[in-house]
């Protein structure tokens, strides 16, 4: 996969989140929107997000790190992904 | 799709059969009691029910249930917090708290649900659960649904519990969890020692009194009574499905804040019907009866002692306990099955348990005593055991 800068990554994750989880056209999601704690994404559905990230970025995120807190916004998700990209 | 899955299941089921683990159900056509009628028409003496106090067909409970049917109808058609709470539910919760000397009680559809829903609302990944290795399946499932760190100690092994408590010191809260009476051996949990260790290592204690409430302790208050710990244990769970009438229902009783938190957050309580009013009414009656007199408890204790003493004398390998469960050790799985079959021919209904329900080479027949048994029932059972025991070479 070609190099991606942080903003491109955020854009891509945001797009996936909106496509995968948001049904309601009235809802606007930003990089900071709390996803799980405000109920847009239930922690159960997080699994498909995890699979998406692992496939897209060719990384492996250990289950212990895939916490609801780490997945709560696009920003925190990208931060998590970056930790594993660097290694 | 289903066709290929069908084949897959058929193979699995065949494997279960070949392993001798296939569960067949015996159909009973009479009320539960000391003497029951099975679908073949045969009348047998029942020594495998959890009907410890003989209340399963008790006239007073039946009358209480019937009265509630007339005043409160059949079902509530709702979960508790929408429109499924009756005055009878509240009354039973209060009565159970009085009975156990606790602060408050919450009812569930079953003790399976009480255990399934108790851990997740109370403990988080910062905390630890330290659980006896022989705890009931419903406790195991409840622990599986909770994020707390898990520690396990060998059955009733207090040295091991102490080591696990030491390992668990790093966590915020610790909860020790044990059955009051372990259903396969009938041994009573060493709650006195558990309580000491809990104090020493700053842990809370939870006891599942399913097989001990109504049975253990002078007045049947359970292992907390036996060890003089009334009011000192944080969480007690129990069932209405065994000694306490045997229909359905479970409960968690203990510290006020804990019960209140369960009412707010416990999933089986929030998302499933409670017990119907007629079961609550019978439960209230049951507590009243057990408080008014000690007759049933006394009779059960007498029966248990009578049976165990005579079985020992006859030469059977049993470990007398303070519970109403008597494990007659046979060790060999086949022998346990053969013995149960022959006993049924003699009119005694018992079950032989073997691996994986009990450890390998620890096969046994489990006898459960009841206040419904009369001395002649016990004598008949002892005679049948002795006869079959000799035939099969278990007794010299």
């Amino acid at each position, binding site marked *: 996969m070609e190099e991606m800068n942080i903003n491109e990554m955020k854009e891509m994750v945001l797009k996936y989140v909106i496509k995968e989880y948001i049904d309601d056209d009235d809802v606007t999601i930003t990089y900071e929107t709390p996803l799980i704690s405000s109920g847009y994404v239930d922690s159960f559905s997080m699994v498909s997000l995890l699979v998406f990230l692992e496939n897209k970025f060719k990384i492996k995120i250990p289950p212990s790190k895939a916490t609801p807190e780490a997945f709560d916004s696009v920003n925190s998700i990208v931060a998590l992904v970056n930790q594993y990209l660097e290694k | *799709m289903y066709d290929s899955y069908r084949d897959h299941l058929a193979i699995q089921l065949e494997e279960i059969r070949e392993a001798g683990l296939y569960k067949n159900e015996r159909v009973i056509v009479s009320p539960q009691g000391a003497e029951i009628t099975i679908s073949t028409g045969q009348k047998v003496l029942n020594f495998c029910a959890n009907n410890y106090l003989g209340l399963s067909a008790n006239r007073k409970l039946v009358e209480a249930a019937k009265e509630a049917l007339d005043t409160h109808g059949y079902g509530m058609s709702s979960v508790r917090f929408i429109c499924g709470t009756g005055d009878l539910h509240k009354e039973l919760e209060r009565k159970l708290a009085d009975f156990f000397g606790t602060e408050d009680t919450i009812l569930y559809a079953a003790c399976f649900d009480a255990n399934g829903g108790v851990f997740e609302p109370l403990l988080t990944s910062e905390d630890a659960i330290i659980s006896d290795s022989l705890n009931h399946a419903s406790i195991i499932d409840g622990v599986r649904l909770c994020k707390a760190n898990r520690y396990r100690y060998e059955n009733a092994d207090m040295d091991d519990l102490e080591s696990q408590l030491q390992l668990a010191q790093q966590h915020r809260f610790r909860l020790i969890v044990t059955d009051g009476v372990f259903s396969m051996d009938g041994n009573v949990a060493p709650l006195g020692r558990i309580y000491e260790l809990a104090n020493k290592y700053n842990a809370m204690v939870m006891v599942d009194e399913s097989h001990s409430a109504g049975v253990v302790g002078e007045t049947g208050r359970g292992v907390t009574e036996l060890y003089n710990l009334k009011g000192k244990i944080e969480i007690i769970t129990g069932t209405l499905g065994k000694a306490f009438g045997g229909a359905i229902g479970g409960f968690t009783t203990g510290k006020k*804040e804990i019960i209140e938190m369960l009412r707010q957050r416990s999933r089986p309580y929030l998302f499933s019907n409670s017990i119907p009013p007629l079961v609550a009414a019978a439960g209230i009656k049951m507590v009243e009866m057990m408080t008014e007199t000690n007759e049933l408890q006394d009779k059960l204790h007498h029966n248990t002692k009578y049976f165990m003493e005579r079985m020992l004398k006859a030469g059977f390998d049993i470990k007398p306990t303070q519970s109403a469960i008597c494990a007659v050790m046979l060790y060999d799985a086949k022998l346990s099955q053969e013995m149960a079959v022959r006993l049924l021919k003699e009119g005694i209904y018992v079950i032989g348990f073997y691996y994986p329900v009990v450890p390998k080479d620890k096969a046994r027949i489990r006898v459960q005593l009841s206040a419904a048994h009369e001395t002649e029932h016990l004598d008949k059972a002892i005679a049948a055991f002795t006869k079959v025991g000799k035939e099969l070479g278990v007794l010299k």
Partner: protein
Amino acid sequence: MSFPESIRSIYQAQLADIQHAGIFKEERFIHSAQSADIEVEFPSGSELKKVINMCANNYLGLSSHPDVIKAAHEGLETRGYGMSSVRFICGTQDIHRELENRVTEFLGTEDTILFPSCMDANAGVFEAILTSEDVMISDRLVHASIIDGMRLCSAQHDTFKHSSMEHLEEKLLLHADKRLKLVITDGVFSMDGDTARLDRMVELCEKYGAMLLVDDSHATGFIGKTGRGTHEYCGVFGKIDIITTTFGKALGGASGGCVSGRREIVEMCRQKARPYLFSNTIAPVIVSGVLKVFDILSANTERRDKLEKNAAYWRKGLTEAGFVLREGNTPIVPVMLFNAKLSQDFSKDLYREGIYAIGFFFPVVPNGQARIRTQISAGHEIHHLDRALDAFIRVGKKYGILGLTKDQIIEKHGL
């Protein structure tokens, strides 16, 4: 003292948080039998108040039907009170098997296994029949008990957007390599009252070689022309691999649930489902009552027909009065208020008017979708519905929401 103040105070603080967030659940004590008219003690300690119940799952009005009560009386006389045993030790009576057969026939399946509740049926079924080689694909709005069951199962899980057949198809493609695929949905969704598109789901499952599980707790007994459930309504009767349902709602409302479906699946549950193996089954007296319920349902469709008429009347009345409702074709009629606090205030005012209906808000429903959920029953007469409608209109006027659109209500009351 191993329960020191430090621990007590942690729980006290958490409880206080729940109270401040306004989501503390307070119970109302009912002193009468469940029916359209009930007597309630609320708040605790106050005088009994007669109110019309608009929030029970008593869809068919059978919770206190005299024939059901009579059958339960007889059951107590002939079968005693409890079994004091799990099924496979000495807890099975012939009437348990009889009820299993009745359910099988009613739902058009191959076999049925009883559980102490539908919660337990859902908690036990997945682990008993799937392994880590398999995948569960569930609608995002399935009931909490299904979620717990899936959490206890080692199969992979994934979800699809509520009732989105396109998304489901994507997921079926995504998981094409799994050994077994089980698609999972509620038949009728309890918070919105909408119906799963089972016809389309059966097609997709056939196309992609998946099995289908439907929780029909809010449908068995009244959805579909003869009340068999959502599969009848969608024209796929006999085509569902697994149906779970409860006796705790329309079917008398006492307690109990079941898994009904393919013979081998039911057999597998009997051998392996933990709540079946390790918990008492339904008490004989309850079984007697449910058997009578099936007699009543099989005799004619009067009750479900009346329920359908009542629900249509209620929906029409609320719509004409200018409320925003969730679309649907079931007796679950959510009156949308969007704002959480408004839903609580509205419910309290209704109670003052003698109408018992509960407001739901996040996290029970999504954020910003607070509502009063009304549930209609064949036990309601037109005069009950008219009185409830009057009360709804009065309270609706008080908050100035009649005739407003969703956006206007949000503008007026906030989110």
